[in-house]
């Protein structure tokens, strides 16, 4: 019995995500990621089902587990009631736990998710914060976003927001005590630990890759993981 498999079993999502897979391919047929990446959720289920230590380790280090968009279409269709999407989430969690995520191009992007989304959550209490979504990094947001960027407050104001204001409303400033509670929750429940692991392993990887690593988003490693694409992800 594989150690890694046992670790996966500790995740309730994994328990929910896989019973006995019959390899019918229903998940892959409906999977958006399988259409555009060399990716096959059926094989993921089959691999973890094998309980083979080496195979699971390779999986945790692979690009494969990072292709899923977590749309959960697979869960709708599986005739055995499995959910490869949930398996993926458990695998991703373990991959970060063990530091394997930095072994793949797509996995390394977790630093981006941690610093940007994670940063927004802890700083603002929101998963997204418009001031971080400039058209410099998100050019496809288009000229309309340029225009909003120039007029963040006024446009929000026009549409009934309470931008950075006290009390209720859109994009209000969430009270500091509420944010403190969230931060506390992160500490108690392992969120902070996850963040620290991502930072630690990323830093090591940056050194191994000989890329400059620093806080924030203006460093070589960060920019690399944000934009680098080796363009082999849809090759068989």
């Amino acid at each position, binding site marked *: 019995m594989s150690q890694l498999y046992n670790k996966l079993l500790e*995740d*309730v999502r994994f328990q*929910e995500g896989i019973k006995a897979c019959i390899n019918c391919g229903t998940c892959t047929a409906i999977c*958006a*990621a399988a*259409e*555009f*990446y060399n990716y096959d959720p059926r094989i993921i289920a089959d691999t973890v089902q094998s309980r083979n230590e080496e195979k699971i380790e390779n999986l945790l280090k692979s690009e494969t587990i990072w292709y899923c*968009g977590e*749309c*959960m*279409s697979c*869960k*709708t269709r599986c005739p055995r009631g499995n959910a490869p999407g949930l398996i993926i*989430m458990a695998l991703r*969690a373990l991959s*970060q736990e063990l530091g394997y995520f930095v072994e793949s191009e*797509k996995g390394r*992007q*977790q630093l*981006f*998710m*941690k610093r*940007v*989304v*994670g940063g927004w*959550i802890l700083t603002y209490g*929101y*998963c*997204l914060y418009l001031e971080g979504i400039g058209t410099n*990094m998100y050019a*496809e947001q*288009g*000229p*309309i976003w340029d*225009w909003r960027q120039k007029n963040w407050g*006024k*446009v929000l104001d*026009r*549409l*009934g*927001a309470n931008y950075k204001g006290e009390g209720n*409303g*859109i*994009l209000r400033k*969430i*009270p500091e005590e*509420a*944010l403190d*509670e*969230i931060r506390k*929750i992160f500490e108690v*429940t*392992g*969120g902070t630990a*996850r963040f620290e692991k991502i930072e630690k392993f990323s830093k090591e990887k940056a050194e191994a890759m000989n890329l400059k690593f620093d806080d924030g988003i203006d460093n070589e490693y960060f920019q690399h993981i*944000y*934009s*680098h*694409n080796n363009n082999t992800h849809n090759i068989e």
Partner: protein
Amino acid sequence: MKVEGKQAIWKEYQKDIAGDKYFYVRSCVRQNFFPGSETTFLRIMREELGKDIYEHPCHTTCTGIGYHGDVVPLDTMMTVVARQFALMTEAGYQNLVPSCITSFGIYTEVLDTWHHFPEVEAKVREYLRKATGREFKIPQNLAHASDLIYKFRKEIAQNAKFKLVDKETGKPLKVVDHIGCHYSKMFPEKGVGGAEYPYVLAGMIEDWGGEVIDYPERRHCCGFGFRQYLVQANRGYSVACSHKKFESMEPYKPDMILTNCPGCPMFLDKWQYAIAEMEGKTYGKDGYGIPVLTYEELAGMVLGYDPWDLGLQVHQVSCEPLLDRIGIKYDPLKKYNDKNGVSLGVPEKPSVMKVS
């Protein structure tokens, strides 16, 4: 296509939606991209329908994007969700209404997990106590904001100033609906109409005079995929998903796309611009894009609210052709004004896609 077949399925998925007294939870994506929609939702619910919708100043994100971006652990997410429940419980409410589909999905998933794994719920209660000292009750009724508009769609129709009808031809407008993946794909019985033929938006479209168009890739994800859009290197996947949908719906010549998810309307809107820039292709009539609306925007529209109060001006794809077709009056000069009527300048025009 036999509509009776669909109706039979819709009947199978009747959802219990509370009639009043809601604890409202805002959406991160929506606040940033479609602030007018949340404003409109509250306006309709409170002013048109006279419902009690409560918002707590201390509620936060559910961490959904962080959770589905896999940087926020399951326990953390569940405890944050538990905190929202605690705020609701403290405020004396039992009916939870999230504005966001992923939040809705997360709440559903959390409740389902706790149902199957009571020990997990106990653990989360412990976490919450430890971190915040709060206690909570599980919500009695969980509905997405679009479920509420669906529930009151007939009332809205009664008060409607406009119908989804081409004023020239008198024919119903062709509307394609796009349901957020996390609305019912995980738990079909939790969504109005189930996962395969969700009725939540279709019901609105029908009752407001439009015609629902079923196209082959109707159920396809818009491509957000959390990490897939946010990281630039992955965006090729993200845009490819929407692209696939546009290519599939194109032959049906839809007048608009209606959505109930925070991210989808933004992507379906912005990707039309990006695809036009990358490939020179547009999907609407006469070089325009296909307008993409949220259900609140649409509800506000039929109720005769000012399009610029709804926030249609922050769409990249122009909604004016749609407004014209229905015969909704608007003042083009006020489109880019601030609250006080002062012009904020005009956005640049895209090089391919036509805008008004």
